């Protein structure tokens, strides 16, 4: 006699429909609410693309013009939304073209799931057409990766991929799926992954550390906060603001921490690091307590480690235990998600005032303003348009409400120094890896992620040409991205170093550029070029006023330099104003 359970099992067995591995991939993505993905088709991923076609009413695939464009677009989407970005590519060159973006996402902690096709499993290792060992290639630059050779593995592995990508310190995951696994059949059932026994995404908070940190902070006379992207990734913006306001602590951001609090906040003092602001760099070596929150003491932030904040007690709020004491020895490490640790420490923090200490930041800013900012904002007559002028005029138009996606180089530093931000996740750039060519595709992804916001890519003439083909993606999708090219007809940052450290030997930094306006027009974008200062304000206003995608090329001073600057190997307090 059959028991009820057995009968039920039989019914269940009948009702589960076998689907292909390729269809399972799409269903998994839908289950993870990843219905907007970026990619490029090819032989080994065709079964999955066939399912994209069948699911096209629920699922949107954006065809980029290069796999690197796809991965950067997915990164831009992830950074603007806080969700997981998804990029898809075929095997071989398709997969290897993703690597730069994956490495970028790894070093900048961006949640990314990359899916690559792979040759049929019986051909693995035979040097088959478009076979590369992408799992080995991507190992050092992924948080996790895995090769699926059996359709039945697909739901569990993709669930794991999303969980790993977004939990703890986020990062990129690559899943390689052989073509036979895409064709193979499975009984589909999707369960989101919530735990992996060997993986602790967020370390347990130690109360004693919270207490120890609070004691040091409460006693500090000259405390200083340096915050990074951890505040944004941990969604801890409010907790962070409450913390610095209660204790009245001056703060400065790393490159990736920008926009975590509004740039006009009284306790915000700009950016630290090589091209950061004067006051926070100089006062790093004067504070008595340095509180690092969600940052990793990158060498571009610290300059010479031997002379970095040696006088200060160091408190490090951090989610990744491997970052503690990696570069800078801490006195107290507060492990955990900063949202939780800041929430816990807040009641222990005394309300405080540090008026004299805060005044010091203002005094040094006044020096920086007079020596650097003011002259760049109002250059003398013979000087061409400066990048700084462009940013101040742009601020007037955006009022700080736009998402700015910058590329890598001088324009990136100027944007980071001068752009006004009111909202979190408004500053997207390639930080740790310094990937030229990042901004154009990342801006496309960002705009698709937050269509209600104005998204403006700010790019140099060099970086623009590194992924210029993505204008085709704009043409096809009609995504209304605004692009500003700050054109100095040089690889500006390298040229600046050649001027300062290589006796002006401009080796391979001079650029002979095409007519960017014509190229943009060829791709169906509205476009304009500004060459004279008197046309600049109108040029920017026209770009902002336009509804669709728009490219504005601004010819800027050719040999302009970014200052202040901490030369490589120098101490943060030896920052040069000229």
């Amino acid at each position, binding site marked *: 006699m059959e028991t009820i359970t057995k009968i039920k099992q039989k019914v269940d067995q009948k009702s589960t429909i076998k689907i292909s591995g390729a269809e399972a991939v799409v269903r998994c993505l839908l289950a993870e609410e990843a219905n907007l993905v970026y990619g490029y088709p090819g032989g080994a991923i065709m079964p999955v693309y066939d399912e994209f076609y069948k699911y096209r009413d629920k699922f949107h695939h954006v065809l980029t013009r290069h796999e690197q464009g796809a991965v950067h677009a997915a990164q831009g989407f992830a950074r603007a939304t806080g969700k997981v970005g998804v990029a898809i590519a075929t095997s071989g060159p398709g997969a290897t073209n993703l690597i730069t973006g994956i490495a970028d996402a790894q070093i900048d902690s961006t949640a990314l799931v990359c899916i690559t096709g792979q040759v049929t499993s019986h051909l693995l290792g035979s040097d088959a057409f478009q076979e590369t060992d992408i799992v080995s290639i991507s*190992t050092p630059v992924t948080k996790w990766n895995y090769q699926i050779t059996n359709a039945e593995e697909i739901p569990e592995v993709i669930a794991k991929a999303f969980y790993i990508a977004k939990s703890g310190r986020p990062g990129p995951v690559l899943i390689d799926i052989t073509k036979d696994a895409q064709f193979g059949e499975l009984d589909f059932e999707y369960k989101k992954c919530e735990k992996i026994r060997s993986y602790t995404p967020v370390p347990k908070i130690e109360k004693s550390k919270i207490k120890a940190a609070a004691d040091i902070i409460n006693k500090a006379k000259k405390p200083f906060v340096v915050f990074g992207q951890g505040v944004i990734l941990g969604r801890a913006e409010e907790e962070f603001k409450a913390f610095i306001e209660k204790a009245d602590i001056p703060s400065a951001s790393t490159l990736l921490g920008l926009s975590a609090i509004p740039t006009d906040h009284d306790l915000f003092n700009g950016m630290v690091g090589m091209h950061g602001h004067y006051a926070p760099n100089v006062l790093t070596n004067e504070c008595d307590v340095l509180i690092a929150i969600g940052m990793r003491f990158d060498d571009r932030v610290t300059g010479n480690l031997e002379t970095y904040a040696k006088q200060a007690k160091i408190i490090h709020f951090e989610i990744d235990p*491997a970052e503690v004491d990696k570069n800078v020895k801490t006195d107290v490490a507060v492990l955990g998600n900063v949202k939780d640790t800041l929430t816990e420490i807040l009641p222990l923090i005394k309300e405080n005032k540090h008026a004299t200490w805060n005044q010091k930041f203002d005094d040094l800013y006044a020096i920086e303003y007079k020596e650097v900012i003011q002259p760049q904002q109002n250059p003398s007559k013979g000087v061409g348009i400066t990048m700084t002028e462009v940013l101040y005029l742009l601020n007037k138009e955006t009022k700080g409400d736009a998402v700015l996606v910058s590329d890598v180089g001088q324009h990136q530093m100027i944007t980071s120094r001068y752009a006004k931000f009111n909202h979190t996740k408004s500053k997207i750039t390639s930080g740790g890896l310094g990937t030229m060519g990042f901004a154009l595709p990342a801006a496309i992804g960002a705009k698709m992620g937050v269509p209600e916001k104005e998204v403006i890519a700010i790019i140099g003439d060099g970086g623009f040409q590194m992924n210029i083909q993505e204008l085709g993606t704009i043409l096809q999708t009609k995504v209304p991205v605004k692009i500003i090219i700050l054109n100095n007809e040089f690889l500006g940052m390298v040229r600046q170093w050649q001027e300062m450290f290589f006796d002006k030997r401009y080796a391979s930094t001079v650029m002979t550029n095409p007519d960017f306006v014509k190229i943009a027009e060829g791709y169906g974008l509205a476009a304009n070029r500004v060459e004279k200062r008197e046309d600049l304000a109108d040029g920017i206003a026209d770009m902002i006023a336009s509804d669709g995608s728009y490219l504005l090329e601004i010819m800027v001073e050719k040999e302009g330099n970014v200052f202040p600057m901490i030369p490589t190997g120098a101490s943060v307090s030896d920052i040069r104003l000229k």
Partner: protein
Amino acid sequence: MKNETYTISIYTENNLGLLNRISAIFLKRHINIESLTVSDSEIEHVSRFIIVINVTKEQIKKIIGQIEKQIEVIKAYYHTNSQSIYLQSALFKVKSSLLFDERQIQNIIKRSNAQIITVSREFFVIEKSGRKEEIEKLYNALLPYGIMQFVRSGRISITKEEMKISELLVKQLN
């Protein structure tokens, strides 16, 4: 800071790509792996890596951090030589005729606590387990007589302190 020999013990999930991922951590930092052994552990489906490196205390701490960061690593520990019980194994293939022609050989084998594990007409095989220096001593003793083949394994090691991996795994799942 001075370099010291450290034995790293890593408990991991039994996963195909993990060896690659772990060795990349050393490669990236230009650290030479002196020996590496992967085997089963006392827990089902859990592998144990034993890696020997020569680095500073500061370096070893950072490396452990990077290893533990890997998703499929359950736990990593490091120990100095005095904190663990360890040995290596070596096999020596030697011509059989030497056993009869060179009387010294028998004494060498006896003195070194080595074992003869197989004998044939042409050759015999000596097995020696112990510290690296003991194996080297035997090697040097046999060398003048001619060694047909020599191979030495990586270090295996058991720690004096408790590891509590099973408890950890139960805790992680709840």
